């Protein structure tokens, strides 16, 4: 059974090695400062107590106030999994360091996050759009990509049939 290492635990152990590298420790994830990211990830990969050699998933999230990139890591040796995050506050040109030097498997996933969310991964050798074509306007997974009429943002309103649906943008013109 995989042990899911909580963000607080992983934040503690990172803190022991790299003081001031951790920004936040939540039950579900730990947030690492952007400029220390590659260092921390490399240590997590190589440290015999962690050995998170497998990058399970890399994805970006638009949190409206900030962008974040989530790294779901996995250690085959200890059968552990954990989640590390990094944030970028720049709304227009978010950018975080690339994880490709740590895990080659980040290549395509970073391209995907760049393509759909517009997060630049500094240091990715081949950061091009992947699903959409070069020159596609905007980044579709951003919450402000196409605003609904009335300033409503997709994904934030209520649905018909739900109590209080009449308050939502849906169903009312």
């Amino acid at each position, binding site marked *: 059974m995989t042990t899911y290492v909580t963000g607080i635990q992983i934040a503690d152990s990172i803190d022991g090695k790299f003081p001031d590298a951790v920004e936040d420790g939540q039950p579900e994830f730990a947030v690492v400062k952007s400029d220390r990211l590659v260092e921390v990830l490399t240590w997590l990969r190589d440290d015999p107590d962690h050995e998170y050699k497998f990058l399970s998933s890399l994805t970006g999230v638009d949190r409206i106030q900030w962008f974040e990139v989530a790294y779901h890591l996995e250690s085959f040796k200890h059968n552990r999994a954990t989640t590390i995050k990094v944030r970028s506050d720049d709304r227009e040109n978010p950018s975080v360091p690339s994880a490709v030097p740590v895990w080659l498997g980040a290549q395509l996933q970073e391209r995907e996050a760049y393509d759909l969310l517009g997060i630049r991964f500094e240091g990715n050798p081949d950061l091009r759009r992947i699903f959409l*074509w070069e020159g596609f306007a905007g980044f579709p997974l951003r919450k402000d990509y196409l605003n609904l009429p009335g300033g409503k943002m997709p994904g934030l309103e209520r649905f018909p049939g*739900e109590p209080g649906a009449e308050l939502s943008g849906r169903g009312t013109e």
Partner: protein
Amino acid sequence: MTLKSEPFVVNVGPQHPSTHGVFRLRLTLDGEKIIDADMVMGYLHRSMEKLAEERTYTQNIPFTDRTDYLAAMTGNLAYVMAVEKLMNIEVPERAQFLRTIMAELQRIASHSMAIGIFANDCGAWQTPVMHMFRDREKILDLFEMACGARLTLNYMRIGGVSRDIPDEWMPQAHKLLKDLPNRFAEYEDLLLSNEIIIARSRGIGVLTPEQAIAYSVSGPMLRGSGVAWDIRKADPYAAYDKLDFDIAVGTNGDAYDRFVIRLAELRQSLRILEQALDMMPTGPVHERLGTSTVQPGTQPIAPLVFRPPVGEAYARIESPRGELGYYIVSDGGPSPFRFHIRSPSFINLTPLKQMAIGSTIADAIVILGSVDIVVGEVDR
């Protein structure tokens, strides 16, 4: 004296018999040798992650059918598991077994296709695929009995499965299980030591375990490189912790190993199915969700709208193609704030360039076949 030659760019795809859909491979060739490879994808990009942000959690289940359309059950399962994790829902035991059975049937169907298509990519003229279709057909019949659909199944629900299996299902499943060992023996006889398949696939597209782990490949590709890693064993979900089965691993990390592993996994799936059918408990197949239901008076199988607590969840399962993960971020609203699919087909393609360079154009097709992509899942 050396012969100079000019590089030659060939577009394999988007319309090509062997790219498994609309997928394009730009190969730069020197003679027949590949010196550079570039993947161009997105021809089937349907922006599911964006669409899912506008639909309720229940409405999103059909999307998960349409990513990996050859393994819709496992797609369903991973998604509903992510939502259940987010909402802390316990699923009834019978539903867990049903999920396991369906996922393993789906694995047999999907691996059969993968093996057949791989032989096709090696140049066999449709015969293996057609033989593999025979089993897949039977399995699809079982799915049809259980949920009414054959390809895009939409069977799993958050908290269970959409409905219990009908009475006739069990005898038919047992009949299928009785047939399958003979079929598998036939495939092993015909394909495993086929000289031409061996000549075409051994030593081709080699990934060492270090490379495989670094490239984040999963499923048969990772196991082909000799890493004994199977989420069903490492992090058992559904009812896998109650069942006994082995992980199939390869020793050389080449295309042939991936093919051999798929053949071996057919038998392991069969083992799981036999145990699971015997152990199947009785009881409800769906957990009643405490949240608001829409239409009072109707059977509350799955509420149309509910609001999970704020938070996030990443659930992964071993789909036939590898680690299929759903990462869901909830802001407490009726639809996911972020809905991300960690699709094995897409990530397994990462090392394709490295595997293809240095081999010939014919090898590139075999390597692509051994990766076993479904373009619906690559592009999403």
